[in-house]
């Protein structure tokens, strides 16, 4: 792949977290008994008419604002094609006048990825093919569940600004965090409430023209996204380097064989015959309404990363995990109470993967203070922290129940002296070694002391003693 650049643009569909469907009062709910969340409108019965769900528009505007899009007057259009799980045999979508125009999303590393548009549309039902291994062509019959038909979707069309599978994953991951943070969607890829179609093309490094793209569908996880991009870009490079050309196609990612397969060629592409939906009136959100929605928006993940990074004196990207776990408020509160930022973030990243539980900011900052003050070793602090998460309480009291007390430095010096006497070669190596060797040997000595004290010693203090003794030689 040397000498080739991969160009990726993603189309992400996310189900909006409304109580009812986009155009009717049927419930928007995942996992009900088939065909129970339906009504004449979501079944597309003759004579039924759509009525727009205002909450869906509000959520769409939130998405637009979060993605720095221009929120604009819009209208709905019909996208016409026959498919059994689409009740009306057309989908109500938006075409040349989407509710959200151009915008951008900032990745944790600071790069901005362009957004082409983010528009509203309705979801389809779901087909189940019975017999023939569940494949449509061999099936003896198909069943259709219309519970999902008419569920509101926001389709977020990204510009071809991504350059690798990693980029694509980072983009989708950030987008998901944003959608969840603003309450627009639950972002669950595994339940299909967030779906990713991936446009991939390749071109020689330095080339400005885009190569012929293929759209890859059926990507059901972040992991598949990375794999599909890797496979598809490699396939295209192989075609070109062997003298063939890439055909514009829609391709299907197969999770089992790890390949993409032709779904349809450009010639077989549908002519959707878009035209303005005559059963709906245009949607022109007022400036007042948009301002109201903007005022009620929570801080976005990117803003939270910058806030935490500023407080902790680190790069925003280094704050990503803490924000992703939703523990930035806890971390900031603990820092406000005087806790050492570095220790706070180490604990959040290493020891709070399952959330803060019963841990309060007060207890957290007190614990970190004990640790930095040498009252508790890192190992002991971790043990106490786990208890605080489980059942709360005061860190000093919890430490006492474990019998954790700081070891006297002179007692430690005695132990270190004894250890040096027992291991003269290791000591020689420590004193005379280069930086790498010294580090290795310090690890050995600290480990031995920890073993001898059953974890009660403070590793940092042991290191200080070793350094002092070595300098004194």
């Amino acid at each position, binding site marked *: 792949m040397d000498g080739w650049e991969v160009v990726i643009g993603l189309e992400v569909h996310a189900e909006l977290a409304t109580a009812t469907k986009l155009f009717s009062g049927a419930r928007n709910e995942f996992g009900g008994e088939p065909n129970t969340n339906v009504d*004449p409108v979501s079944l597309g019965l*003759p004579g*039924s*008419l759509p009525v727009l769900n205002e909450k869906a528009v509000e959520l769409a505007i939130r998405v637009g604002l979060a993605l720095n899009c221009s929120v604009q007057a819009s209208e709905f259009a019909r996208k016409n094609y026959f498919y*059994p799980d689409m009740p009306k045999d057309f989908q109500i979508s938006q075409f040349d006048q989407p509710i959200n125009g151009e915008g951008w999303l900032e990745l944790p590393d600071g790069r901005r990825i362009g957004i082409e548009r983010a528009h509203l549309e309705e979801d389809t039902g779901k087909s189940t093919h019975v017999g023939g291994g569940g494949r449509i062509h061999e099936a003896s019959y198909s069943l259709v569940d219309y519970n999902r038909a008419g569920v509101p979707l926001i389709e977020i069309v990204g510009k071809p600004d991504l350059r690798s599978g990693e980029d694509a994953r980072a983009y989708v991951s950030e987008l998901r965090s944003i959608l969840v943070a603003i309450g627009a969607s639950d972002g669950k890829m595994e339940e299909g409430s967030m779906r990713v179609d991936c446009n991939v093309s390749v071109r020689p490094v330095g080339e400005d023209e885009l190569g012929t793209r293929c759209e890859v569908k059926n990507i059901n996880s972040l992991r598949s996204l990375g794999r599909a991009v890797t496979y598809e870009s490699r396939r295209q490079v192989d075609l070109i380097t062997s003298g063939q050309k890439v055909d514009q196609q829609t391709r299907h990612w197969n999770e089992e064989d790890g390949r993409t397969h032709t779904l349809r060629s450009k010639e077989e592409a549908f002519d959707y015959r878009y035209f303005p939906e005559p*059963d709906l009136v245009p949607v022109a959100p007022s400036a007042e309404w948009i301002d109201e929605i903007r005022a009620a928006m929570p801080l976005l993940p990117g803003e939270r990363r910058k806030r935490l990074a500023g407080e902790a004196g680190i790069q925003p990207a280094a704050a990503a995990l803490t924000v992703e776990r939703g523990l930035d408020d806890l971390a900031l509160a603990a820092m406000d109470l005087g806790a050492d930022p570095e220790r706070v973030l180490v604990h959040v990243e290493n020891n709070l993967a399952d959330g803060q539980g019963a841990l309060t900011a007060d207890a957290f900052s007190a614990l970190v203070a004990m640790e930095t003050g040498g009252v508790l070793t890192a190992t002991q602090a971790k043990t106490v922290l786990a208890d605080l998460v489980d059942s709360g309480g005061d860190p000093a009291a919890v430490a006492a129940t474990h019998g954790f007390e700081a070891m006297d430095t002179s007692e430690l010096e005695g132990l270190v002296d004894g250890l040096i006497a027992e291991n003269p070669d290791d000591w020689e190596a420590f004193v005379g070694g280069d930086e790498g060797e010294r580090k290795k040997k310090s690890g050995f000595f600290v480990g031995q002391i920890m073993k001898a004290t059953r974890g009660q010693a403070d590793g940092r203090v042991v290191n200080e003693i070793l350094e002092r003794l070595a300098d004194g030689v």
Partner: protein
Amino acid sequence: MSALSLAASVRSGERSARGIVEEHLAAIADGEGEIHAFNLVTTDAALERADRVDAVVAQGGDPGPLAGVPVALKDNMCTRGVPTTCGSLILDGWRPPYDATVVERLDAAGAVIIGKTNMDEFAMGSSTENSAFGPTLNPRDTTRVPGGSSGGSAAAVAAGFTPLSLGSDTGGSIRQPAALCGVVGVKPTYGAVSRYGLVAFASSLDQIGPFARNVADAALLLEAVAGHDPLDSTSIPVSAPDLLGVLDRGVEGLRVGIIEEISGSGPTGLEGFAPDVQSRLAEAAEALAAAGAVVEKASVPSTVFGLSAYYVIAPAEASSNLARFDGVRFGLRVDAENTVDMNAATRTAGFGDEVKRRIMLGTYALSAGYYDAYYGKSQKVRTLIVEDFARAYQSFDLLLSPTAPTTAFPIGEKVDDPMLMYLNDVCTIPSNLAGHPAMSVPFGVGDDGLPVGVQVLAPANGEPSMFRAAAVLEAAAGGSAGSRHDS
């Protein structure tokens, strides 16, 4: 007897709803075999409903302004549990699980639904010859068509089977059959009557409206079904207009313009208007002038392009609206090896020629590469028509034209020539494109002794003045349109 007096007699306890319904069922039993106005007469349900209305009166209650009055529904309006066919084989066996809004409103007004009337398949036609269940005949002359597409609803009223009926009008489908059958027919302002539960032909043009044997009855029925409906996003957010209260106000001082381009009188106008129809129009204009209106010639130049624009826009919307008839969820299914073949086999067997013709026209007009030249251009024409009307209504309160170029034509005469058939709607289509109200009032007969209709057009929400002019025309023409069973 008028619907107004029938309702009054039921509300006062003078007559029973059951008696009225039985009388009309008897008229149907007598004449329906010849006319074929109905696809379904809901005898049992109508009698049960009449008994409930009578029970309300017996308990001292008021069943509503349409108490005990029979109303027939064009068979494209959904009725819960009752077959709704749209005159098509493709809806074979389908019973809607819900009532159209107009059905609920009729129920609330005390009306008795007496049956579902025959129509051109999916409201596509001007003669009711395109029904899968055979044609409806014109009660005035059974060798003639009743017009269409709401021919069954017009014929049922003209034949005295029911005092009132509802039709739908996409390009003239209420007004043209009203004219050909000699009854009153109204297409209200777009959005005045809810379309929820009306099986769509062309959504931006479709509008439900009343048929009656006199202007006041038409006003009574329109008042009962009009008014905002949250289930229809294109419904106007206002309540039903007061029409009965203004009917006797006359036309003194109203400015009325005769549209030259669609009345056969202007130099740039369309041709094909029968001389007797033109004469009746001139007499109608004189009658309005005699009643104090200021009547002049008016020009609405782009109305001559209405037909062409209509035959792009309406089929385009229809091609999409009718996609859902695919054999998957309801109605006819013709089995095949796979889903795509099943869709095709079902639609091939279920749709008639005219419906297929329009689906193909509309699909073509919306196709990539043709959209701008057809659909896009037609929308521009539509805008021109709206602008032309707006200009005309700066000088006039109402406009006037014939409803149809000729009186009722013989069955079979135009059915094999779609273009000739389409020309029947030149006068009525512009109002649908503009979204304006218009109504047909019987005004004398042609040389063949068959009814002639005069069309009164008004700007959006101009129903009150439109009905005032209609009442004046009705009086001048010699009162309420007769029916064979009225004499």
